[in-house]
């Protein structure tokens, strides 16, 4: 049973998503238990995947073949092949754990906000669909299933955006639908071009073909696919949709949206590292420029915002910029030492970013849960009402802006000292970005938490929400104090997986 883990990791949340609607008929308690159990099981599968990768290294799993390791029976792969290596196992593990945490968080949050019953069933199935899509994107080995799972994440997250059934959340969902339609269109164009030329869909096989003849059409296909994924990521020129979406989506789902952007970054790095690696110098520089632009625009636009969630959304665009900086330098300096160091900084920053901004969104959700408002001017003096929220916010703030003892500092330190070799100006932009990020969150902390005591009705925050937030905070502190654990355990296999495109191709051919 366990050697089918890669397929089960994707199949099980799908099955659970549809089943949860049915089980919802029996009663909401039972449905909660069912969803929690299925998430836990997927989490175990993901952990098993990581152990398997640590033991066996990169390996493929073909759906439907009698002997699972039989990659290509007749010379070239016909079936859907899932390739699991350090990087994809890490991304799958992260996606599942964040979904598990956000589900526990959202139990009481949804009750107060949308009043259980039928809409809670819808919420659970959509969340599970979203997770299945992310896992699919993380593990696939060929372009078309990547496109299918990308569609799945877009549709499920768009309907989650419209969950509150209010005018403005419909508008945000509508915008998101248009953006994902365009995204899917351009991605399909790129895949179609490649398919027309090589007749192949499997990434590794295409990469193998491309080593010999790399035509002009491939360049156009590359740029279409890259810009489609950049749109999904929300890097600078096309980042505005993310802000409207993050403002309207329920906070627990916003944490998952951040993870879906990070899965998008994984897909981008998978394509640029393992498939189009011959163009790496050029695409690396492009990703670095877009990344530093994202940092500058994201942080400078976060400063004047008046709404808590919009501000954190802009901050997440800046954090995506940091990760792109790391991965772009890894690409540009693929052969040199500072390239690998930058890549490990970028990948480690993916984990930190998911934790830090996830905690920030959870705190924003808790504030919304307690006071029913997210506008900064209407809130004030919450530190008097709940000290634990303000301590959590301080930890999150220091971690996001990279102040020494916390995890943000470690990944930023690694990145600055390696990106520095590519061009010193990038480190300067990084340092400036983190000080502006700090002042964004100090502004939020001052206007929402400090000042004279909050007069309005302050509903007590339930234990389940505080517990999840404290788990995030403890993870942040743990990663900050013992970075070696994460760096050796999770990050270095992922970096080797990305850089070793030879191994990646060898598994399939």
């Amino acid at each position, binding site marked *: 049973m366990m050697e089918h883990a890669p397929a089960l990791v994707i199949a099980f949340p799908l099955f659970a998503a549809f089943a949860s609607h049915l089980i919802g008929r029996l009663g909401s308690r039972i449905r909660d238990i069912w969803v929690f159990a299925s998430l836990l099981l997927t989490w175990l599968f993901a952990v098993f995947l990581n152990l398997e990768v640590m033991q066996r290294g990169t390996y493929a799993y073909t759906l439907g073949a009698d002997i699972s390791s039989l990659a290509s029976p007749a010379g070239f792969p016909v079936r859907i092949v899932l390739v699991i290596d350090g990087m994809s196992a890490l991304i799958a593990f992260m996606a599942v754990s964040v979904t598990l945490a956000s589900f526990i968080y959202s139990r009481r949050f949804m009750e107060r906000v949308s009043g259980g019953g039928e809409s809670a069933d819808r919420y659970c199935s959509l969340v599970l669909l979203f997770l299945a899509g992310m896992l699919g994107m993380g593990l696939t080995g060929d372009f078309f299933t990547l496109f299918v799972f990308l569609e799945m994440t877009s549709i499920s997250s768009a309907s989650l955006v419209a969950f509150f059934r209010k005018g403005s959340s419909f508008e945000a969902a509508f915008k998101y639908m248009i953006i994902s339609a365009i995204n899917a269109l351009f991605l399909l164009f790129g895949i179609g071009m490649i398919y027309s030329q090589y007749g192949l869909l499997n990434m590794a096989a295409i990469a193998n073909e491309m080593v010999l003849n790399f035509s002009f059409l491939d360049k156009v296909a590359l740029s279409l696919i890259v810009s489609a994924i950049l749109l999904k990521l929300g890097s600078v020129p096309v980042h505005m949709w993310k802000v409207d979406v993050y403002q309207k989506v329920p906070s627990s789902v916003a944490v998952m949206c951040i993870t879906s952007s990070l899965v998008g970054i994984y897909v981008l790095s998978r394509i640029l590292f393992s498939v189009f690696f011959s163009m790496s110098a050029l695409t690396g520089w492009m990703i670095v420029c877009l990344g530093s632009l994202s940092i500058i625009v994201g942080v400078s636009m976060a400063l004047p915002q008046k709404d808590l969630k919009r501000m954190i959304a802009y901050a997440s665009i800046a954090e995506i910029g940091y990760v792109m900086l790391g991965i772009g330098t890894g690409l540009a300096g693929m052969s040199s030492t500072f390239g690998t160091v930058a890549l490990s900084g970028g990948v480690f920053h993916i984990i930190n970013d998911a934790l830090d901004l996830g905690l920030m969104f959870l705190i924003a959700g808790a504030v919304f849960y307690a006071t029913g408002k997210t506008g900064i001017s209407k809130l004030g003096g919450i530190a*008097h009402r709940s000290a634990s929220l303000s301590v959590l916010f301080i930890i999150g703030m220091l971690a996001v802006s*990279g102040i020494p003892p916390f995890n943000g500092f470690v990944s*930023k*330190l690694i990145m600055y000292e390696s990106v520095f070799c590519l061009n*010193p100006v990038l480190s300067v932009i990084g*340092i400036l970005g983190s000080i502006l990020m700090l*002042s964004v969150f*100090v502004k939020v902390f001052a206007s929402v938490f*400090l000042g004279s*005591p909050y007069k309005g009705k302050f509903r007590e925050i339930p234990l389940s929400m505080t517990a999840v937030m404290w788990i995030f905070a403890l993870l942040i502190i743990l990663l900050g104090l013992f970075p070696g654990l994460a760096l050796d355990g999770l990050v270095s296999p992922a970096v080797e997986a990305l850089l070793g495109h030879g191994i990646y191709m060898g598994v399939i051919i």
Partner: protein
Amino acid sequence: MIMKVLLAMVVPVAGILIGLLYKGIDRILAARMQGRVGPPLVQPLRDVRKLLVKENIVPDDAVGWLFSSMPFVALVSVMAILLYLPLGITPVLEGYGDLILVLYLLIIPSLALVLGGFASSSPYASVGGQREMVKMMSYEFPLAIAVISVAWLLYSSGAENVFSLSVISGTHVWGLAGIPGLAGLAVIFLCMLFVIPGELGRIPFDVSEADSEIAGGIFAEYSGRNLALFYLADAVKAVAIASLAVALFLPYTVSGIFGLGGAAAPAADFLFHLLKVFFVLFVSSTVVRVVTGRLAISRVVSVYWKYPVILSFLGLLLIMGGTLI
């Protein structure tokens, strides 16, 4: 190893005493420049002893735990910076922290100041806190460029382990990149000196503790013991930022010239380092403090983001050009 632990205990406390000494000298020199007699040299120590005796008032609306813990955090973080800086001798925590860490540790005291100010529920303090945050945003840009360009100079001239402070303070930076490099470095040293009064909140940039406009700014509600801790943190921060500037730009040691050996060499280097720190502080904060008046907050941002940024980018380009030739 024992020597290191011993030094790790002595250096922070010595930092406080040196900081108070510099504050005393600073006030006397400023007074003499204005034709006044000026306080006795130990006046800062007397101020601290007096503040310790006074009552420590915590306002009602303030967030108590944050209000009282911020002075503590400010002083601890500033004293921690001294351990990573090369005070003439090799830094106490030599292999455990580098230049970027010092740059980020310099943010924590101002951040503690801002959070303390916001937590004290006084309108003056929240205005002061916002101004301090804006000032921090503006002076961090030229500071980052200066620090990175010195590291780039070392990197492109083939040094190993470029960001560690012992390497930086070990190499003679000025002659490395020929004439353009020298000019670039001089420009960047000027920008660094221009950043120091901003970092310390001295007169042209004391927008956050502006006495006449916002009644003490961030410190409006602090009194007694908490104010004493902030006073000490400010004194030690002057030593920290000045010794960072000295480590980057004036890394010359004296023990070589006098040919001292054994225990005398580090002592001579340490004293020479204090002299250099005094010189940097005198040029950058005392003279400027006596000569200029306070800037409006929007002027502070444009003053820091227009001229020093262009100058230091120019310096960086010169250095890049210098290293290529």
